[in-house]
């Protein structure tokens, strides 16, 4: 069965046209990722209108190409100019740029490219192994569990999106409210249309997403006139030859760091909204902690390049796991992919892998293939990167704004969609200027209808709200959501206030209850183990008199 699916997906994916589209996607991603200030999500959003006329497999393969290319493209400008092309390559500059300045730019680039490649391959393996298992668990979900999962995803997004969690939650709720505009799914009654026929069907998801994300981002980029009129690459980038063999050997010899960083990347990708911009710094920090020579970090050490680059590419696999297994986008890129799937009438849900095996396995294979393409095309795009850095931001922004309007119109051939883009662009810019994060709004819009349908099913079955606490998965997500909403406060006060010592043990004990309530043998045993581990931590900390550890010196990102 699995073999048949793989063969079907391969035959659809391995056509000349799809391969050419993927190559184009990887090249565009590599070049776009190399442009400072031009994010990967923006590149994927811009490719989206071209995929409307393609099959679902072709469209997704192209977008995966852009995604993987973009994750690796950021290292070029980061290493050669010291300015990260994307936020996912911030930590790469800490050691990549010093190594390039020592006269080894070819080796630095090679390390980045090979670490990206291996990180991508490791996460592809995890994706293939974990996504179907997670989807199998997802099939156990009843509407209560699914609704609690949505609530958890929004809470995590809000807590990770910014300093002020209240603003994050407000943003998420605004997203949910936007999704209610138009006819409701159950009875078809218009809601909040205020007599307008144009919004009768609700706001199309993609104009909202492009308006909130791309429009807002571009306007922020041109806000400062001097920056807008400057070249994209502040320094001149030199053309270099990548030292592939030496770099590959060096990366493989640090397999421990490689695997650890890749797994950090995958795990970060699984969390909604915690994308590669977080994973690369986390992996760098861990690599430094585990290193025998931490003092060498920041001077051009190999481990300092391997960790962030393998982690940021591995994040893609994690984000795809969530999208494919549970229908929840791990980041904006997967939210766009989810939108692309919806255009082709494919609704991602826990049954996605079972119901759409060709598309699902094509995504697995495309992710693998894209990593190989990235490896082969990196040297080629290095020249393109040097040319692209001469473009000025204001020119790029003007052209892209026009392109956004054109692409949004092409979606449904409705001019109202361009006004939707405009109004959500205005709204997004105002929200961003006032310090409200944008990602929770987008996730709210994506999850709004799914959450409402789940709630409608819940009410149709039973109006008893205690069912949310009686079902193990629902309780699991509620407990996790509660703890994750306080995680930001915990992180801020860790090693400063005593109560933080009890946070993790309390979380383990509380989570052990729903895990213990689950069916089967393994999960209840896991629940008992988790509870015992939490109690052990409590006892250990109580014996130590709840004393706080010595505070670590406060580190800025640049000091990492």
């Amino acid at each position, binding site marked *: 069965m699995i073999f048949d699916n793989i063969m079907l997906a391969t035959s659809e994916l391995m056509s000349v046209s799809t391969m050419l589209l993927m190559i184009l996607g990887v090249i565009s991603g590599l070049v776009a990722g190399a442009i400072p200030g031009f994010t990967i999500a923006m590149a994927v959003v811009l490719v989206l209108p071209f995929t409307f006329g393609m099959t679902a497999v072709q469209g997704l393969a192209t977008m995966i190409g852009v995604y993987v290319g973009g994750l690796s493209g950021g290292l070029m400008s980061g290493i050669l100019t010291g300015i990260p092309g994307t936020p996912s390559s911030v930590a790469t500059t800490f050691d990549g740029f010093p190594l390039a300045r020592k006269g080894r730019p070819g080796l630095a680039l090679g390390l980045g490219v090979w670490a990206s490649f291996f990180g991508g391959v490791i996460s592809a393996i995890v994706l293939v192994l974990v996504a179907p298992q997670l989807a199998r668990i997802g099939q156990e979900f009843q509407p209560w569990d699914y609704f609690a999962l949505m609530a958890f995803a929004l809470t995590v997004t809000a807590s990770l999106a910014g300093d002020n969690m209240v603003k994050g939650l407000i943003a998420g709720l605004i997203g949910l409210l936007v999704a209610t505009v138009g006819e409701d799914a159950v009875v078809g009654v218009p809601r909040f249309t205020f007599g307008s026929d144009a919004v009768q069907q609700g706001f199309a998801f993609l104009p909202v997403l492009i308006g909130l994300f791309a429009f807002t981002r571009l306007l922020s980029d041109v806000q*400062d006139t001097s920056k807008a009129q400057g070249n994209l690459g502040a320094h001149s980038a030199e053309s270099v030859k990548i030292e592939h063999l030496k770099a590959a050997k060096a990366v493989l010899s640090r397999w421990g760091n490689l695997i650890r960083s890749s797994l950090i990347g995958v795990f970060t990708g699984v969390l909604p909204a915690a994308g590669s911009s977080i994973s690369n710094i986390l992996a760098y920090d861990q690599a430094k902690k585990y290193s025998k020579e931490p003092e060498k970090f920041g001077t051009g050490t190999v481990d300092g390049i391997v960790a962030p680059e393998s982690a940021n590419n591995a994040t893609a696999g994690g984000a795809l796991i969530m999208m494919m297994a549970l229908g929840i986008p791990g980041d904006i890129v997967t939210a766009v992919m989810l939108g692309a799937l919806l255009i082709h009438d494919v609704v991602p849900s826990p049954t996605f892998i079972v119901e759409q095996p060709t598309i699902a396995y094509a995504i697995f294979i495309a992710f693998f293939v894209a990593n190989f393409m990235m490896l082969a095309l990196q040297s080629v795009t290095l020249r393109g990167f040097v040319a692209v850095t001469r473009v000025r931001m204001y020119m790029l922004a003007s052209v892209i704004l026009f392109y956004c309007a*054109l692409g949004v119109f092409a979606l449904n051939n409705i001019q109202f969609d361009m006004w939707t883009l405009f109004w959500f662009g205005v709204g997004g810019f105002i929200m961003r200027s006032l310090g409200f994060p944008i990602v929770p709004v987008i996730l709210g819009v994506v999850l709004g209808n799914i959450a409402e349908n789940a709630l409608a099913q819940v009410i149709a079955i039973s109006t008893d709200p205690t069912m949310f606490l009686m079902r193990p998965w629902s309780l699991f997500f509620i407990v996790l959501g509660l703890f994750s909403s306080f995680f930001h406060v915990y992180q801020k006060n860790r090693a400063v206030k005593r109560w933080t010592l009890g946070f993790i043990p309390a979380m383990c004990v509380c989570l052990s209850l729903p895990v213990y309530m689950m069916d089967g043998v393994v999960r209840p045993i896991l629940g008992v183990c988790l509870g015992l581990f939490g109690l052990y931590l409590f006892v250990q900390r109580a014996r130590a008199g709840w004393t706080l550890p010595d505070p670590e010196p406060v580190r800025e990102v640049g000091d990492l």
Partner: protein
Amino acid sequence: MNRLNRDTLIAVILLLLVGFFMYSSFSIKTPVFEKLAPGQMDPGFWPRIILTGLAIMGLIYLFQSIVTPPPPAEKRGGLIGWYRHYKNPIWCFVVFAIFLTIIPILGMLIAGLLFVFALMTMLGPKDKAAFKRHSWTTMGTVGGMWFIFACLLEVQLPKGQYTGLFDEWLLVNVCGIVSTIGEIFADAAPSCSALLASV
């Protein structure tokens, strides 16, 4: 305006909006002929849950903004300073809104050319060389994208009220030539592959 005032003001506006939407949510009524089945969710129920959440968060935000001491406010020099700070985004919005308004009159291509050129001129340097650069870039990029969408992807782009004939002429000639070339290649392909096979 310092941050305390700004955040308080936003919280108050948010709460007013929530109140307005909450009031509107009670006018969401299921038609009489379409009675809700037992256990069926009322269409206004879900929006009211969201609005209740927003009201709670809005109140917390309001409370936070009152009790938390405001950070030192950035001095932007009043209304003129504020305008200077947001000048470029404001002009982008204005030019984009004008662009959307004139699309039905001038069509996507001409409106697009005017939009991109106007925005580049507004945001970029205003010397002669820049004008020249903006003109060429505008024609190349907008023309290129129009070509891709109209001719290759066959999207029916909006035609102008006053430029409809010109748009039609462009479509027939430019896209027509492309499709003719495509047909020539399609015709030639089998004979080429036969030739290659014989070689």
